[in-house]
């Protein structure tokens, strides 16, 4: 283990990271269960005309819209079908295994279950932000002119969706991790930053 406590901390984080990523991916469908409910609730409160249901799939969320699309004549079930939007919520959830690795790197195996629970619950709103804004971005920009005409978002809403989507995918996941870790490890951080004291987990 390096003598510099910061480098030792980095090394411990890198050791914990593969394990936390593996566990996170294995448990992803279970961990995404509350996200399904939160996303459905948020969208039904803010834009009820865009959504009929949110379903949890294998490592994905399926947003069922009320919009219809023509099914090509060549396909067996010719006619109209509801448009669905599939979103990978893990894109916005990698902060959880990172935060767990940071917690274990700081405290070792003495990390409490309550801290892990706070980490999970604390990150859920940020993950929900990313998922909801990706859904809005898809409806507003990616589903084609027919849906865009039906939705008819004003320009300022479109710009707000674009900003919210980019903020939710590029900034919120890393920031939420760092803020939660700092808030939950102030004592460890102070010892880490104080060159006059040894750092223990």
């Amino acid at each position, binding site marked *: 283990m390096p003598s510099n406590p910061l480098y030792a901390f980095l090394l411990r984080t890198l050791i914990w*990271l593969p394990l936390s990523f593996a566990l996170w991916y294995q448990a992803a469908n279970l961990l995404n269960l509350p996200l399904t409910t939160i996303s459905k609730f948020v969208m039904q409160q803010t834009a009820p005309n865009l959504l009929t249901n949110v379903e949890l799939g294998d490592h994905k969320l399926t947003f069922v819209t009320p919009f219809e699309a023509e099914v090509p004549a060549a396909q067996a079930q010719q006619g109209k079908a509801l448009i669905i939007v599939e979103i*990978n919520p893990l894109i916005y959830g990698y902060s959880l*295994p990172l935060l767990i690795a940071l917690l274990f790197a700081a405290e070792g195996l003495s990390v409490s279950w309550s801290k892990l629970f706070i980490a999970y619950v604390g990150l859920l709103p940020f993950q929900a932000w990313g998922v909801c804004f990706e859904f809005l971005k898809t409806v507003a920009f990616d589903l084609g002119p027919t849906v865009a005409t039906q939705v008819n978002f004003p320009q300022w809403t479109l710009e707000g969706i674009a900003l919210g989507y*980019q903020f939710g995918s590029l900034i919120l*996941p890393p920031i939420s991790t760092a803020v939660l870790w700092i*808030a939950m490890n102030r004592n460890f*951080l102070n010892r880490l*930053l104080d060159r006059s004291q040894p750092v223990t987990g």
Partner: protein
Amino acid sequence: MFRFFVIFLLLLIGLFTVEILQPVQQAVIIPWTGLIARVSAGLMQLFDSDVHSNGVIIQSLKNHFGVQIVAGCNGVEATLILLAAIFAFPASLRHKLIGFGLGFLAIQGLNLVRIISLFYIGQWDREAFDWAHLYIWQALIMLDAMIVWLVWIRMLPRKTAHAF
């Protein structure tokens, strides 16, 4: 700590909003992203003559596999996070500029490793590419920014070391 978080978040939101403005994208971000693609391709050409870059796209002439460097892959957001964290922390301007300069190099250096590794992982296995691209490297770049920030704080004069 509360003061730090408020300044940090305000700075970050301001910087990010400026970053996604079209004039800033056109004048700074897109040319920067193109430069990253060229530097990455240049580094790979040292040992792989089949690599070619065009704008923000890096491609293999051997199997035509290509990667496009887009927002989130150019290291700009991690750099902005580090910038906000350093400038929100109480320290002299000189220390902040030195910390940001070295941190910028650390983030962009690791980002080149990320792009080069993803280019070869993608040619090897698509599922591994997705994993590395969407999850692993995102976490590692963030960890890089965080460690740089902690190293910087630890190197500050002792009177500022107990800000939390």
